[in-house]
């Protein structure tokens, strides 16, 4: 029974996150910080940055990868399934309803205005979440350099994120080898 309750808890946590995230995978970050780090203490900022890194360099939708990973860490394969299904459920329901009833709902002026307001809010929420994440990911001038390099390359070029992630992982190993003679 306790196991089932834990799966249900994972499922519902990600249903909430899926229902409240506007604007794609990155918008999930502030919700994850609130639900998983602050409220449940299932993980900390540093691990959350790891999940996001993995979610970005593995194929598929980042939000799904992150949900699967957290579920897996919490309760193994059934936990991964519970978290992922939870993440998917709100989308399935909302999109199906829109498809059936309100095909051109973006044509209503009020809907457009509301979403423009929401977008401004998403910028603030992601910016705030980003600030917290930077504190745990940027520890010295090396990591600051990697952060700036990836930020600039992602903003100004169309390089593949996979390439950048792989290069950054490699750079991490090289820097540590230079710093400590090969020891972590």
């Amino acid at each position: 029974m306790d196991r089932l309750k834990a799966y249900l808890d994972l499922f519902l946590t990600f249903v909430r996150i899926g229902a409240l995230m506007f604007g794609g995978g990155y918008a999930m970050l502030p919700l994850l910080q609130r639900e998983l780090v602050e409220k449940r203490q299932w993980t900390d900022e540093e691990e959350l940055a790891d999940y996001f890194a993995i979610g970005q360099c593995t194929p598929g939708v980042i939000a799904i990868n992150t949900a699967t990973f957290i579920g897996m860490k919490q309760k193994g394969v059934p936990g991964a399934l519970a978290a992922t299904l939870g993440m998917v459920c709100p989308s399935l329901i909302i999109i199906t309803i829109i498809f059936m009833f309100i095909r051109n709902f973006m044509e209503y002026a009020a809907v457009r205005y509301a979403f423009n307001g929401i977008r401004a809010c998403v910028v603030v929420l992601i910016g705030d979440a980003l600030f917290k994440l930077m504190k745990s990911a940027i520890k010295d001038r090396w990591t600051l350099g990697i952060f700036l390099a990836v930020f600039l390359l992602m903003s100004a070029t169309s390089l593949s994120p996979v390439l950048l992630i792989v290069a950054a992982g490699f750079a991490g190993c090289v820097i540590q080898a230079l710093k400590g003679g090969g020891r972590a």
Partner: protein
Amino acid sequence: MILLRLFGEFFLTGLFAFGGGLATLPFLYSLGERTGWFQASEVVDMLAVSESTPGPIGINMATFAGCKTAGIPGGIAATLGLVAPSIIVIVIVAKFLARFKTHPLVQNTFYGLRPASTGMIAAACLGIVKVTLLDWALFQETGLWGDLFNGKAILLAAVLLIAVRLTRKHPVIYIAAAAAAGILFQIE
């Protein structure tokens, strides 16, 4: 069997689309072209709806495309297809990491990955700023500095930033308030 084909097509999309939901976009275009299930203009509509409804964009688009092709069962088949490779890959990666987590090589890799992942989020954030708080496209067209800034949206963002910093409520409260403000002040 169209449901099986939908599942298969989206399974391949999930397996080969790197870099999040938007990376599924080119796959959708090619799928529409090859099968005739939907047209390029319909993909644009799907994207608009997917970006403005809650949930991961990639999942929203898969559900939409599946519904369009084969009704509600199609939506479910496409979504499950998109998600399946993620589950398989992540379960394998997680098992591997659990075993080698303390290995110096893994630790050093993550030392480099964390700031990179953060840099990508910062770039994504800038990307949203360009289309919400600024009107980058219009500015490039006209070259007028007055066209660059979306005054109402910037003001709303500033107020929200102060509110978030001071009150620390659940994100959905700020989202609801922002939606109301958007309608009230007719934010373009």
